[in-house]
């Protein structure tokens, strides 16, 4: 068990090193971390709760108050503080994405390892499932699934529905990636030798295959997480989130449905979008840097020569 933990930390440490070396990656990490910190420390950063209504002198809700009247980000259509919603929204958006991502990666890893390692009919069958899933357009499918689930009186939070549906649909990239890596690793000799001395399948997977695929999972996680955030925000925008626990997408749903746009309340519809781009871009930069480390890109190509090629001293530029 201790050994397995050390594989994990090995991959993560390598990732950490790569990030620190690359400026863009560092920037990406900063973006993600600030969002995390803001979300975690939300209660410390605002006096209100997301559902609190700010009232003016006459006791009416202070609707659509601009930032210069009520800072730092004004109020929404009902008089709730936007800044508060924003940082508490971070909790929802990030948590939903993390959980959905966890489900997706778990399924994907399981499918990928099984298909790659067991091979044969299991592989063919699983790959067919993957192919079919990839072809079906994801947004319509999700909408249809969510609509059905909601009708089923399951007494679960709408967020749980979102998490499950997203997790169920976005594991394919992970599965394919891991499967091809497992296939490569399987060829290597030490796996055969290990089997020869009677090691069980699970043991082989744990000790030999997992360490090889761990770095790939790390890179893929970043991609899956950023996709999950985008998808969640989209679904929430369409009204499928939990209004009592608004994520950034839900905030945008409110803004859109409740005339923030026509009222020119940019402080309500800009910040949540910016927040989404902030976090997703952060993840994308992180993912870029990690991927560079795994597949270091070509240092050049054949059409880069030309002007600077001949630099013989004492001669004019050829």
């Amino acid at each position, binding site marked *: 068990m201790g050994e397995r933990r050390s594989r994990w930390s090995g991959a993560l440490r390598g990732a950490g090193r790569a990030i620190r070396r690359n400026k863009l990656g560092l920037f990406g990490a900063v973006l993600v971390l600030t969002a995390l910190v803001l979300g975690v420390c939300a209660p410390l950063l605002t006096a209100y709760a997301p559902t609190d209504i700010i009232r003016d002198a006459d006791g009416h809700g202070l609707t659509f108050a601009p930032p210069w009247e009520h800072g730092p980000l004004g109020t929404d259509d009902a008089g709730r503080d936007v800044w508060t919603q924003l940082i508490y929204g971070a909790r929802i958006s990030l948590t939903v994405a993390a959980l959905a991502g966890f489900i997706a990666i778990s399924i994907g890893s399981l499918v990928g390892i099984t298909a790659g390692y067991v091979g044969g009919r299991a592989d063919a069958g699983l790959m067919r499932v993957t192919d079919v899933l990839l072809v079906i357009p994801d947004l319509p499918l999700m909408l249809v699934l969510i609509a059905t689930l909601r009708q089923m009186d399951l007494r679960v939070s709408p967020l749980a529905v979102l998490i499950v549906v997203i997790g169920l649909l976005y594991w394919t990239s992970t599965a394919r990636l891991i499967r091809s890596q497992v296939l490569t690793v399987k060829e290597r000799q030490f796996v055969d030798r290990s089997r020869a001395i009677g090691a069980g399948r699970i043991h082989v997977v744990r000790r030999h295959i997992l360490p090889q695929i761990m770095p790939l999972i790390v890179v893929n996680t970043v991609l899956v997480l950023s996709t999950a955030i985008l998808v969640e925000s989209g679904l929430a925008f369409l009204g499928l989130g939990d209004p009592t626990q608004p994520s950034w997408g839900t905030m945008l749903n409110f803004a859109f449905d409740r005339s923030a746009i026509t009222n020119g309340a940019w402080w309500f519809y800009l910040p949540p979008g910016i927040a989404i781009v902030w976090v997703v871009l952060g993840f994308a930069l992180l993912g870029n840097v990690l991927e560079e480390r795994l597949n270091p890109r070509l240092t*050049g*190509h*054949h059409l880069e*020569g*030309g002007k*600077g*090629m001949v630099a*013989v001293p004492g001669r004019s530029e*050829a």
Partner: protein
Amino acid sequence: MTEPPLLSVRHLTTEFTLADGQVARALEDVSFDVLPGQTVGLVGESGCGKTTTLLSVMRLLPGNGRISGGSVLFKGTDLLTLSEREMRSHRWTDIAVVFQGAMNALNPVMKIADQIREAILLHDLMDRKAADRRVDDLLELVGIPRARRNQYPHQYSGGMRQRAMIAMALACSPDLLFADEPTTALDVMIQAQVFELFKRIQAEFGLAIVLVTHDLGVVAEMCDVVVVMYGGMVAEVGPADSVYNEPQHPYTQRLLAAFPDPSQSADLPEGGQDLATIPGTPPRLNALPPGCRFEPRCERRIDRCTEASPALVDVAVPGSGARHLAACHLLGEPEAGDA
């Protein structure tokens, strides 16, 4: 020296800027001549700079490469002084390259005939119809059935692709052909066919060939002159007979030590005679020693070898008329005026 050389490389120095900013000197002071109709072998381990020499002469270095010194005289014109546009007109029409056909050197989505024809049409040598006829002639010359002219590279065998590359290289009737490892990855039978082809076209068209290879056997068979390279520098250069029978550079001597009599090349083992392995590794081109580059692996080193890099010294048998040079401190001082 009765006729002027076709190609005269003098003091060619090439550098590469690595990803971390360091500069690697891939070629240092490389000099050699190629006479018309001559076959010159450029031999050495991988990384010794033979392919870089070829690319430098053709000015086809990748983006991080720079020619920082020397001259490349082709029929009297220094190619390094030309503009890129002028250089383009010399490519293929004067000097052509046969790359390893077994690899990806042919465009996979273009028909073979079209690729050959492209070279002809590019240099405005003839109209389309005539060009097509010439393509057919070339294919016939290299022994590729005309029915297969419109196929794609992946449909050819490795040997056929190599021959197609040769046909393409001849398209504009160049005076000089560079052949970069033309038979690596081909089996011995096919290798022999390819070299037969080289000999035939040389006899027929009188072109000069520079054979870049690590295969000593091939060089023994085909080359008039041998240039032995090590660590980006010329270690020894001279007529094949001289170099093979009286190698002067310790590196050459080690190489040939495990090599049987060149005249018995017909008995060569499978896969040709690769360079004998010498203990040690080639020098790192971004951290070159001040002295002789072969010194760490040399059994005959003296103190001088770590202090200064040896210059080429004339080691020809006096009165033979041939030019045989080697760069080793053990061979005495260079005469004034030597290249």
